[in-house]
């Protein structure tokens, strides 16, 4: 149905353009496929401790996909509750792998974590969503969305029926989450919102939503557990959860100009692969999911318009100098001497201070002497002294 409308309007546009050279209806049609002008992503990992490595890997793989499809770091709020890449137990430091045999390092070179460690709390998460941050919060830690922003929210961790556990010490309930989204809607902080949750009994978290333009996906129904995918024997923990593993596989096939829609996303990880039954909720969403592109939420496809009008500023108010044939009279710039090289070269070799032999040497020699005198008898002592 949407395709037919598009064709009709385009042809109308062409007919009109013969008359006035403007394809306003076709241009407007492209505008109205979706109402958003920018994209944001809030990616949260709520569990700490080394054995919850897979939750950090989940979040980082969604982060990687979202960055690859175009959303810049300034529009991503990444919250990781624990540091796995630089964890003492990580046999491969500065890496977080998502496939066994260490095929894919999702940590990469330019990860920008906005909330780390103990900063990931229920309070901070709700503050980010509702915008009630203290005035000293820097820009990178804020969700500066407006009424034409599409937001992707991804939560992962340990959850139960109606709650999600943060940091092993507190929890957020589905009622609080629904209220937070309603407050976002009241202030028109989003145009459309996609909520994905990968926890046990994840579907309970979106049961209580009541604000418009929300679409939700969960990895398991109430009463089911979301299972992890595969352990890696070298690292020693499970690397990813099943749902996010197949989600990442699906997203790797998406490129910024892709036309895949939400119905394909709903089919990710059927029961045969996931063991749990993924669920989704679209009744609060106004558009038909088949017409919603994946890149509407995971990517950042900008709308552009050609600039038709320009202003003629012929006579400049202030004459601007021409740089054409100016001779280069500047002196060559040089760095100030950082090291006093002259002093170093002509320096006398520094006297090494004498240190008494340390414990190891002492112990070694004592051992040797003991063994010698033990073997050959104490009477040889007079030969030495």
């Amino acid at each position, binding site marked *: 149905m949407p395709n037919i409308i598009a064709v009709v309007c385009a042809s109308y546009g062409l007919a009109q353009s013969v008359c006035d050279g403007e*394809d306003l*209806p*076709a241009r*407007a049609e492209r*505008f109205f496929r979706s109402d958003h*002008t*920018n994209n944001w992503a809030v990616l949260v990992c709520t569990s700490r401790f080394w054995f919850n490595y897979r939750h950090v890997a989940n979040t980082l793989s969604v982060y990687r996909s979202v960055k690859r499809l*175009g*959303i*810049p*770091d*300034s529009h991503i709020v990444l919250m990781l509750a624990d540091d796995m890449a630089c964890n003492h137990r990580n046999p491969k430091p500065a890496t977080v792998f998502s496939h066994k045999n260490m095929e894919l390092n999702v940590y990469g070179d330019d990860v920008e974590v906005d909330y780390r460690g103990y900063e990931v709390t*229920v*309070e901070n998460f*709700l*503050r980010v969503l*509702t915008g*009630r*941050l*203290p005035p000293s919060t*820097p*820009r*990178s830690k*804020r969700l*500066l969305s*407006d*009424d*034409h922003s599409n937001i992707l929210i991804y939560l992962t961790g340990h959850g139960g029926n109606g709650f999600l556990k943060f940091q092993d010490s507190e929890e957020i*309930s589905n*009622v*609080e989450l629904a*209220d937070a989204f309603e*407050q976002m809607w*009241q*202030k*028109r902080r989003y145009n459309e919102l996609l909520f994905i949750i990968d926890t046990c009994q994840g579907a309970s978290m979106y049961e209580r939503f009541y604000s418009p333009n929300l679409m939700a996906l969960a990895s398991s129904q109430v009463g089911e557990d979301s299972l992890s995918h595969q352990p890696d024997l070298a690292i020693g923990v499970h690397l990813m959860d099943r749902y996010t593993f197949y989600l990442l596989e699906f997203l790797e096939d998406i490129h*910024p*100009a892709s036309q895949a829609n939400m119905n394909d996303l709903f089919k990710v990880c059927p029961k045969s692969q996931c063991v749990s039954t993924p669920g989704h909720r679209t009744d609060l969403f106004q558009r038909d999911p088949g017409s919603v592109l994946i890149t509407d939420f995971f990517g*950042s*496809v*900008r*709308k*552009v*318009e*050609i*600039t*038709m*009008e*320009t*202003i*003629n*500023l012929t*006579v*400049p*108010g*202030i004459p*601007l*100098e021409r*740089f054409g044939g*100016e001779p280069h009279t500047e002196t060559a710039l040089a760095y100030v001497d950082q090291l006093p090289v002259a002093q170093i070269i002509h320096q006398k070799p520094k006297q090494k201070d004498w240190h008494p032999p340390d414990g190891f040497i002492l112990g070694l020699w004592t051992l040797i002497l003991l063994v010698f005198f033990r073997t050959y008898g104490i009477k040889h002592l007079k030969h030495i002294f």
Partner: protein
Amino acid sequence: IGMKVRPVLSDPEKQRGRSAAVAIAALVIAAGIPLWWKTTETYRAWLPAARISELEALQLELRVEVEVVFARGTLSPEQQKKVPASRITYESCCKSKSLCLVEADHALHTLTETSCGSVVIYIIPEASALLPQDMRVYVGRSRTALLRSQVASVVGAGLPEVLAALDPQMEQVLQTMSFNHQDVTAALTDRLRPGLSTRDSLADSMRAFKSSPGYEITFSLLNPDPKHHQLHWDVEAALDAYIYPLLHKMAPVANFSVDSQILYYAVLGVNPRYDASASAYTLSADSLAHVINPVEARLGSNAASSNPVLNFLLYVPDSLHSPLIIRNDQKQEVASNAFHSPRWGGIMVYNVDGAYGNDTQFPVDIAIDMSRVMGVFLSQLRLMLGFQQTGAPPGFVLEAAGREGVAEWELDRLLWSRSVENVATASASITSLAQLLDQIANIVINDNIAQQVASAVTALQAAVAELEAGNLALALEHSREAISASERAFFDPSLLHLLYFPDDQKFAIYIPLFLPMCVPILLSLLKIFREVQQHRAEKRAKRD
């Protein structure tokens, strides 16, 4: 042995026991329960709920002051007698026919002082040669319009009839110069049901930034090829000459902070295709959407403020890919060689291959023609700030803004829609905040929030009153105050509600604390009550 002996209490002891129990119960009920209630309640400062509920049914009335001036020769002599002339001046400037429109407009502008939001319409005779033959209306750079009409032929020559005859034309002028139905609904788009506004106005509202107390504008020069091109751009002087006048005029609307930067080795994310027919590299309209994202990662932004950022990029293609032209959907070359993205900014491609030949020594010094660049950026900036591309209605001549960047009536148009938008947003914030605080009973409302809400409501009512009176400048000021106070109140960090406690959890907390204390008190009260009853029954039996 092992027998339970009940202590026999004498009467005064029993009395003392009874009064002790009653006293404890009285203390608990009279002092304990209020104390517990008081100490567990959340502090909620008083909010003006009545005034806030009035805001929900807010009716906006917008009033434009119009001054109609009849030039010589438009009214017949008997009409002239009947029209109450507040000022009869003979404008000598209109007599000479060789005067051009712009000069006439300028001369007329100096005659009357127009306040912000008002419009002056000069009625000139049909036979006047100032306007071209088929044009009826000329709208100048300030708030004046020239309307060509013949009212001498109107029958019944009083003032009301004359004005009634001019009404439809004047309304058209006002709709172009001040506001019309579409503008107002566009300013209220997110508060209205979808489908009420037209697509053009919706596209305009998507393109322009929402009303905000400040904006950051960044001008960036992208030089992917510093080995060959050494670019010089005198951006400070250009900003002084072309952009700052516009921003200065916009000062009542918002604060602006402008900065500029040069990025080296910054490439567009799209490979342009070589077109042999034009002997140039081309970027098609479809690929433009993918240009912005790789570049955006490298543009900085001011970390200290949360204001929306407008980016204007000037891209000078590297020598291998010069010249680079942009093609639109119909594969035609775009004159400005620039494109813009709604709510983000604009990018212009500036080709410098004409400035040097093949055998010059690299790097070549190139000075960028800032007037051409700023012409494009200025028009993009106008679009981003909300000055719509109004198509002139048939028969109208709209004077282009020229070097000042914006005409006064265009600014007035923006001020009208901004005031309406601010009033709508502020009232929506206040009403939803009041609703939220009502619903969630355990949010603490501090004094400063109550103060912000009260001042926002006051400012809102003042803004509505000024809009009704037609004082646009004051209305805008009040509406800005209202929206900043309401935003501060809504987004105050202390308004995070305490964790959600379901009712059964509340019972689970209070019962172990209060039940052991209340059970003895209740039982003793019951016992006292039963004894009193018994005593009374005995007394009645004795009497009888």
